[in-house]
């Protein structure tokens, strides 16, 4: 990767004064964030706070109005292809084709990313998410939890260094949520940098190394996980988003 615009520090992911507006309405109002390699940042925030917009910009699915996003000192705008090679997204949408089998879906993405020995890679990932036995079943026949596991395998096909998780627990039952949480912890153990956006305070706090609260398109709160008092986080959260605890 050729070097792009130099950033001010050597952080793995650096976001500076990021703004996004839709028809004059500001979704992001100047986000500044800095993550080191291997960080697990959980972002909480009310609906409409700009969480998904932020993830979409980092994933190159959306263009920012202004500001800079860079991974390892390489600017997103100048190196979007390299960026896409090192980023993956897991959301409540699986990005999988219902009429294709689990194996066919992964093989399709492996081919798009030009993966060497795609068949072996697909088999390895199917085993990792415990779906190898169901490799020839269509995604349409999978439960929501199984689809989410396959979605994790899809997201790992390009061995990303940054994984973006947009409400991955949405629509999952308690058991599937626990399984997903364990899978995410495993991903983090592999020293990947992860950004999780969720409403689920419990799951979000358990995996995080850094925690942020986004309110009205700005980072209103940002702390190391170790500095946070778990017992009072509910109150802290509601204080920032302007609601009340029950």
């Amino acid at each position, binding site marked *: 990767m050729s070097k792009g615009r130099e950033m001010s520090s050597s952080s793995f992911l650096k976001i500076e004064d990021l703004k996004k507006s*839709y028809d004059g309405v500001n979704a992001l109002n100047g986000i500044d964030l800095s993550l080191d390699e291997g960080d697990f940042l959980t972002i909480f925030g009310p609906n409409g706070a700009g969480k998904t917009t932020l993830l*979409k910009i980092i*994933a*190159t*699915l*959306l*263009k920012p109005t202004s500001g800079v996003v860079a991974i390892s000192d390489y600017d997103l705008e100048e190196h979007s*292809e*390299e960026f*896409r*090679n090192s*980023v*993956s*997204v897991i*959301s409540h*949408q*699986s*990005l*999988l*084709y*219902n*009429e*294709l089998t689990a194996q*066919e879906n992964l093989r*399709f*993405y492996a*081919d*798009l*990313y*030009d993966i060497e020995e795609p068949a072996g890679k697909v088999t390895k990932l199917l085993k990792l998410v415990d779906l190898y036995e169901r490799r020839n079943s269509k995604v349409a026949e999978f439960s929501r939890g199984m689809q989410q596991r396959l979605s994790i395998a*899809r997201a790992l096909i*390009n061995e990303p260094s940054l994984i973006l998780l947009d409400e991955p627990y949405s629509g999952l039952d308690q058991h599937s949520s626990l399984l997903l949480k364990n899978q995410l912890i495993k991903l983090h153990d592999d020293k990947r940098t992860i950004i999780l956006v969720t409403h689920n305070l419990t799951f979000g706090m358990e995996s995080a190394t850094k925690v942020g609260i986004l309110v009205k398109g700005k980072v209103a709160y940002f702390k190391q996980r170790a500095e946070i008092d778990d017992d009072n986080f509910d109150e802290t959260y509601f204080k920032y988003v302007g609601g009340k605890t029950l």
Partner: protein
Amino acid sequence: MKNIITIVKKDLKLEFRKRESLTSMLFFGILVLVILNIAIGIGQNIAPSISGGILWVAVIFAAVLGLDRVFSNEKENRCIDGLLLSPIEPETIFIAKMAVNLIFMIIVELIIIPIFIVLYNSSITLENLPMFIAIVLLLNIGFSAVGTLLSAISSGTRRNDIMLPILLFPILIPLIAATVKATSELLSGSPVEKYSQWLYLTLAFDLIFFGSSYLLFEHVIKEG
């Protein structure tokens, strides 16, 4: 090229599993030909100027049915984000989707055109066949280029099945008119010189709309 083939293979696999587009396209195209044949009178000799129009009405309306399916697969589970997240360029997606539309049209035409020849006693001979194929290909390319761009636009709307024809047909009028004129002259046995201006018009349409659709596709498929 490899990525184009990967997407085309995936789309064809999905279509042959679901059998949604091709079945409805073929059924509709054949139905138009048969109903108009009954209305005109079975076995009646029809002026080439009319039969040329009938053929393209059947083909184009059938082809429109298949257009919006090409992106409806990508809307399911937001698969389009999966494509856009991968390191391929949006233009590659455009070429692949256009190729899928072309393949669907050619399959439909391979079945509809022989039925048209039989039902309407059309004078397509070995002599004029190459020129007829040229007319068909010129129409297919222009239709697929515009159709791919507009189906990407309409797939983002709530009523894309209504929006697509509303956007598509006004733009296609020059292409359809030139194709019908060229076909009618060809079926009448006219020399190429007599309808070459219509072929040039379809060629110009193809070049302009392929180029503009190719360049605009990224702006259409990606969110602002």
